[in-house]
């Protein structure tokens, strides 16, 4: 990691550290809940940023991987295996702490998979599915790749909506909390708000540091070369199809981790998380952030998701994200925090101010 990135990471660290203080000073502590959620969404976006921005492979199926992570843990932690209790296999798994015994709200015994185990499963499933999907799909390029990944996203959405074990249109609720440390459990309880915010921040920083190191490594350069020219990077001795698959799987794992934690934080997941518009939203965030700009993606990932979760866009949520995507593509294809765009914006503002001044002067005369 170079000096600049180290500085940026430490600034981000300080911001995360101070945010609960600021919110309590402003008496808007409830913002922390939405901020925590947007951080988890931002983790999904930075994974996609790696794939889209740096390796140049578009994916319209990121929401599918998010829901794979979320549903994996939701199904496995709400399943009740109590009737099989006593069999050898279940006893063994209980001894290994793979299964945990707890009481539900009706005070009945329930036996389900430990979130530690489902976390592992969420990652493994995302890896397997992205591997199987990635091999054929990544042979495509450009629009065709976008269409194929979108098709995959739609398939997952329909499966989620039509499968009984996945709760169909209702989704899965009452997902138990994930107790990580004695004083830290991932759930939406108000008393844990600050701890949860810090934990989300910690996961974000961890993911970010991994990605930044990756970008500036030998592997990262190879990924970026894919974006430039596949033929050339192939003749440099880079196995392009292997790297495309790797980065696709990396994006899937980031989405799955985001889905996993958000599901535990919300205590449930619904089919809308797998929807195509959600994928469009992630793509829009990466585009607004400037494609190959992990910091831009992060800033807008948190900002836009926060505004959306606060209900600023009202029922026009999806329309706003669609519009953002169109406007960014037309007016700022390099993203909003690129210097070129900011310079142009400043110049425009100056011209407008001058015009107003002239008008005022004229009226004064």
């Amino acid at each position, binding site marked *: 990691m170079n000096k600049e990135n180290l500085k940026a990471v430490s600034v981000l660290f300080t911001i995360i550290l101070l945010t609960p203080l600021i919110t309590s000073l402003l008496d808007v502590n409830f913002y922390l809940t939405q901020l925590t959620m947007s951080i988890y969404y931002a983790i999904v976006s930075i994974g996609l940023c790696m794939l889209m921005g740096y390796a140049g492979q578009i994916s319209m199926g990121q929401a599918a991987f998010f829901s794979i992570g979320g549903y994996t843990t939701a199904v496995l932690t709400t399943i009740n295996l109590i009737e099989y209790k006593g069999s050898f296999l279940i006893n063994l798994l209980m001894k290994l702490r793979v299964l945990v015994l707890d009481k539900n709200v009706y005070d009945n015994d329930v036996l389900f998979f430990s979130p530690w185990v489902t976390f592992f499963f969420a990652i493994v499933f995302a890896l397997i599915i992205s591997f199987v999907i990635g091999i054929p799909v990544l042979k495509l390029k450009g629009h065709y790749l976008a269409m194929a990944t979108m098709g995959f996203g739609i398939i997952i959405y329909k499966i989620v909506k039509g499968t009984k074990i996945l709760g169909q249109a209702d989704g899965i609720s009452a997902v138990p909390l994930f107790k990580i440390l004695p004083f830290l459990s991932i759930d939406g309880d108000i008393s844990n708000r600050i701890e949860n915010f810090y934990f989300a921040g910690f996961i974000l920083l961890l993911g970010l540091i991994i990605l930044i190191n990756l970008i500036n490594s*030998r592997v990262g*350069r*190879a990924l*970026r*070369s894919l*974006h*430039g*020219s596949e*033929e*050339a*990077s*192939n*003749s*440099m*001795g*880079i*196995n392009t199809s292997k790297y495309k698959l790797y980065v696709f799987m990396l994006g899937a794992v980031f989405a799955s981790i985001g889905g996993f934690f958000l599901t535990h934080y919300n205590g449930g997941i619904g089919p809308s998380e797998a929807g195509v518009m959600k994928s469009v939203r992630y793509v829009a965030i990466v585009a607004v952030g400037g494609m*190959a700009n992990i910091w831009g993606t992060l800033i807008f990932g948190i900002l836009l998701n926060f505004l959306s979760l606060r209900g600023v866009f009202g029922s026009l949520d999806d329309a706003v994200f669609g519009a953002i995507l169109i406007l960014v593509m037309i007016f700022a294809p390099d993203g909003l925090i690129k210097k070129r765009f900011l310079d142009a914006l400043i110049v425009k503002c100056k011209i407008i101010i001058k015009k107003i001044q002239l008008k005022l002067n004229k009226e004064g005369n």
Partner: protein
Amino acid sequence: MMLKIRSLDAGYSNLKVLKRISMHVKAGEIVTIIGANGSGKSTLLHAVSGIIKGKSGEIIFKDKQINNYTAEKIVYLGCSLIPEGRQLFPAMTVKENLVLGGYILKSKNKKINLEEEIKKIYTLFPRLEERKNQLSGTLSGGEQQMLAIGRALMSRPDFIMMDEPSIGLAPLVVKEIFKTVVSLRKDGKTILLVEQNAKAALKIADRGYVMETGNIILEGTSEELLNNHDVQRAYLGKDYKNIAER
């Protein structure tokens, strides 16, 4: 023998571009392939470098049959392609492009010092050192070609294939590029040069092949080809009259 191709057939899906091509390149030679657009020159280079697979025939590189090798494996054997139109990585700096060129060195030998390798390229092309932190997309055409050559040299190849290095460059720059090609041979590299600029290519090459519609129709030493009437008429811009007058 550096490269030997025996009755190679290759193409894209159903389209057969190369028809029973046979040729060879000896170590230390500069060999040129000339021919018009669409005669299959680039396809031949793609087939050798493993980007497309041959349908039948043999490609033997350094006594190894490489027909079924993947593109990156062929690079490991010491065969480097400079693709047509440079194909740099425009969003990366000049230096990053060079570091990426040395990609396979790191896999071969973990302890290698890439900085030293890059310095060697800078002594060959001092212009690149001046611009090392500039994005490669902002270089001029000639500088881009230098960078493309430098990037290919970073993998320490013995055999370099150049696909139309003179394309889109001013005559003076072409001269400079071709001078480097000659100097590369002095360093012990073997070069296969694909060119439309037949005159310039034949001047520096030892031998040449003429391709037309996927066949090699003529081969010989550069002098033979330069003096061949058909070549003169078709590629060197001399018509019958001039030839007859001589």
